[in-house]
């Protein structure tokens, strides 16, 4: 069977990619942010995964409002970076883990999920930025990807509980896959931020820091929290954090918090990451 070798949580703020594109990595605004990810990159180099499952939301780049899938799963051979309005980015395309992705789709439907299945689709910064944060800027990505899109834009967004349940199916899919691939799961989005309305610019550092510890040691309150509470605590766009629950639910109950990092603000967002390993 394939094996889960780590669960990672990370922000996916588009300005992170833009900062790398513009060579701003070592400027005073960005250096502390990127420096904190170096341990995550080193962890990834050592872990040598074959497949990265990336749980993220599209930001009005791939899906328009004419059709809004609550959950979508990619089964494509290649995922090109989408033009988000600033022109194409000079990063490599992502190779899909096609057979494993179909296996996950089979498992999902068997377990009563109804995903949209995507054969030809581009990916936005929600997937790009986490890959850049943990793999840098290689000539070609060293892993194949399984993208999972979660609607966090148009309400109703899925419940935290539903994201948790998807993580359980993801684990089952990995453990029932006959290959011997090493799999990392990236739950992305957040942390606190609000881009819309008079509360724009809301950042809740205390809640963010509690999240980074709690998602490892005691995720239960986050599983049972309402969507309204996510919005109140983390801001309207901070509710993206529900996507980390897919990753967390796929891990053991007991995990080791191997690395964590927090920095605020990255653009308008409380930003950070965790690296989790299943406890022995």
């Amino acid at each position: 069977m394939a094996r889960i070798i780590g669960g990672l949580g990370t922000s996916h703020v588009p300005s992170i990619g833009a900062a790398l594109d513009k060579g701003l990595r070592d400027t005073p605004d960005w250096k502390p942010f990127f420096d904190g990810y170096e341990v995550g990159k080193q962890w990834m180099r050592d872990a040598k995964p074959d497949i990265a499952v990336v749980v993220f939301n599209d930001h009005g780049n791939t899906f328009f409002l004419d059709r809004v899938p609550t959950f979508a799963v990619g089964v494509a051979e290649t995922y090109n970076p989408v033009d988000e309005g600033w022109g194409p980015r000079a990063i490599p395309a992502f190779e899909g883990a096609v057979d494993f992705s179909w296996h996950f789709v089979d498992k999902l439907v068997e377990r009563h999920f109804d995903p949209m299945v995507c054969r030809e689709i581009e990916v936005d910064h929600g997937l790009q930025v986490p890959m850049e944060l943990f793999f840098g800027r290689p000539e070609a990505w060293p892993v194949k990807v399984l993208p999972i899109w979660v609607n966090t834009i148009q309400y109703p967004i899925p419940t935290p509980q539903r994201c948790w349940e998807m993580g359980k199916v993801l684990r089952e899919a990995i453990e029932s896959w006959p290959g011997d691939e090493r799999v990392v799961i990236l739950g992305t989005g957040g942390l606190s931020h609000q881009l819309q309305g008079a509360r724009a610019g809301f950042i809740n550092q205390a809640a963010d820091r509690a999240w980074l510890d709690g998602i490892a040691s005691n995720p239960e309150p986050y599983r049972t929290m309402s969507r309204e509470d996510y919005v109140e605590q983390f801001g309207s766009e901070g509710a993206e954090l529900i996507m980390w629950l897919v990753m967390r639910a796929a891990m053991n109950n007991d995990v080791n918090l191997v690395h964590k990092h927090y920095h605020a603000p990255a653009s308008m967002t409380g930003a950070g990451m965790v690296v989790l390993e299943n406890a022995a």
Partner: protein
Amino acid sequence: MSEAAATIPDTPLFDRAGSIRGYRINKMAMALGQPANRAAFKADEEAYLDSFGLSAHEKSAVMGRDWHEMVRLGGNLFFILKISAVDPTPITRIGAAQASMEHEDFLHLRLGKKRNG
């Protein structure tokens, strides 16, 4: 969900009503992901907006870069950011406009950045 969430102060959620209200603005903005449409927008903004059927009020909000009003009209930030990419306008200025704050004050008071100088 939408009614309960609407009780969080100053926090509009992009729900059914917003999605319906803002459909034209968002569709126009989404199209700016394509270079040919960006060129058309730059060449004759009003004609571009007309081709998406925007009302006079919607057009004036877009052409005046009134971010607060665009959101009130159902514009979702992730779509209308593509307008800011054409300009370009930094996202923090869009945030400040919605918060009705000066940009420097917004950076300092909301985002916690140190003041320049």
